[in-house]
């Protein structure tokens, strides 16, 4: 049977969760999802990962919070957000009705807050899983962030996995010597999947004022600039882990997304691209479908991890 746009199977299986296609939105770049309703059909997406959620509402950092760099964007939003109670009261009911898996990006100033978020959310319906943002600085431990070393990652993942009834995706920071080591710690602690990468710690300087361009001095770099490093990390991690890998970092097109799949990702998240084009994630789904059609690929899952390195 000829492969046509209609017969192409875009679904992927994360084991704990089947997705209609491998394209999710990246946390913090798609708001709470609903902001994008005017621009695309939310039901077209593989999944929606909402903005990082602390238990309490968060103020965030002083502006400027954004600065553009060569093919990149540095942000220092500081995880401003409404907190878990307002999320459940005001946002979740609407999100639930969409019919697309909702994944909540979970933050915490310490292990207790992370646990409090998932415990609160566990009582709600309409959430497909949690994405643990282990990059939050730990207020109790001198601002150290669990994402930077294996033991704190292991401890946090273990605790949250035990505290929750839902699938857990651990989202890794790229600011480490060995991302494989951190990913393995998360895997040993029982994570159901890993997602990578979060942003790269970066800065920009205004030469005229000799001040940092961001209110917070440092911020996180995302966008096409980081794609080659993200792709390498996804390849490294996917080659070593058993659990599925969700890849991201500078994905702007269907080609970018497919490269991450070829490198070993089972699904991808689209981040900064949604700022440039609010319908980017839906467009990328279409581009993947068209590529599969043009290349006679009947099921997109067949290309996952097919990179030939010899």
């Amino acid at each position: 049977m000829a492969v046509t746009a209609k017969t192409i199977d875009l679904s992927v299986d994360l084991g704990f969760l089947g997705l209609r296609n491998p394209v999710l939105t990246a946390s913090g770049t798609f708001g709470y999802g609903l902001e994008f309703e005017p621009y695309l059909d939310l039901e077209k997406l593989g999944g929606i990962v909402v903005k990082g959620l602390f238990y309490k509402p968060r103020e965030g950092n002083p502006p400027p919070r954004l600065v553009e760099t060569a093919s990149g964007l540095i942000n220092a939003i500081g995880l401003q957000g409404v907190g878990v109670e307002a999320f459940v009261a005001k946002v979740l009911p609407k999100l639930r009705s969409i019919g697309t898996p909702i994944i909540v990006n979970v933050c915490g100033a310490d292990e207790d807050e992370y646990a409090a978020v998932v415990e609160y959310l566990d009582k709600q319906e309409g959430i497909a899983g949690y994405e643990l943002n282990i990059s939050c600085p730990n207020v109790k431990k001198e601002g150290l962030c669990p994402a930077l070393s294996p033991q704190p990652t292991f401890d946090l993942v273990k605790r949250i996995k035990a505290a929750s009834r839902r699938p857990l995706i651990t989202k890794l920071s790229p600011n480490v010597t060995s991302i494989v080591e951190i990913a393995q710690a998360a895997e040993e602690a029982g994570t159901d999947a890993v997602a990578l990468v979060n942003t790269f710690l970066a800065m920009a300087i205004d030469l005229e004022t000799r001040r940092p361009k961001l209110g917070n001095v440092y911020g996180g770099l995302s966008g096409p600039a980081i794609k080659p490093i993200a792709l390498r990390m996804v390849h490294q991690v996917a080659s070593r882990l058993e659990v599925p890998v969700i890849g991201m970092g500078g994905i702007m097109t269907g080609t970018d997304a497919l490269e991450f799949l070829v490198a070993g990702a089972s699904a991808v998240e689209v981040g900064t691209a949604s700022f440039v084009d609010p319908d980017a994630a839906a467009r990328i789904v279409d581009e993947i479908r068209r590529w599969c059609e043009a290349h006679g690929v009947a099921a997109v899952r067949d290309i996952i991890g097919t990179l030939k390195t010899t």
Partner: protein
Amino acid sequence: MTIERNARLREVQSWGDLFRFTIEAPAMGQEARPGQFVMVKVSDGAFPLLRRPLGIHDANAGGIELFFKVAGQGTGILSQKKSGDRLDIIGPLGKGFTISAATKGKKVYLVGGGRGIAPLYFLARELVKAGTRPFVLYGGRCRTDIPLRDRFEKSGIEFLCSTDDGSFGFAGLVTELAAIELAKAKPAMIYACGPDPMMKALASLAAKHDVPAEFSLESIMGCGIGACWGCVHRIRNGKGNGWVKICEEGPVFPGERILWP
């Protein structure tokens, strides 16, 4: 709110580093309200990455107009577009100026500094339609910095100019001109757009004279649609003083809600 991927740039007018674009975008033109803005893509490649926010300078059933100053790389690339080129625009976005029935028949002041004049032309036209009498105070560094004088002239809108160097109109800051005019006659409302220091000075003038005022704020914007939380400004809420998204709740805010840096 539409994404117009292929809006035809009908006409380009320019004065030094200031540009006026007339763009075919009927849906956007019909929906637009004064004080709203659009997000314009300036390049196809990944550099510059983000869209640039620009106020709606005028709008009608055929489309919209933009009026912008070259401030850096993005507006620089934009300024090289030629009539006939296609633009990728999202808008109209944000909440505009309030045109209230309470000011009907009364005089209101519109104070614009530099490129900040952009949204005030559209606003002035709509105020006239609503039966309010706009009086525009239009300031710039020098004579060539205030090219829209002709346009205000032709449209019959009452206006006064100021230049920092005295090369045209009142010699001094537009806020000084505003202070003089406020001392002469108290308007029903002040609307303003311009650099932060100008608006801050105007806010205290307005408060002093007890005139309600609205200000259009600027910020670097990641998305323009309320999704990135990058464009915040300190705004008084019911509960306290929070970082509020300019693109969503603004860019126009009443003076008493704005906490100036």
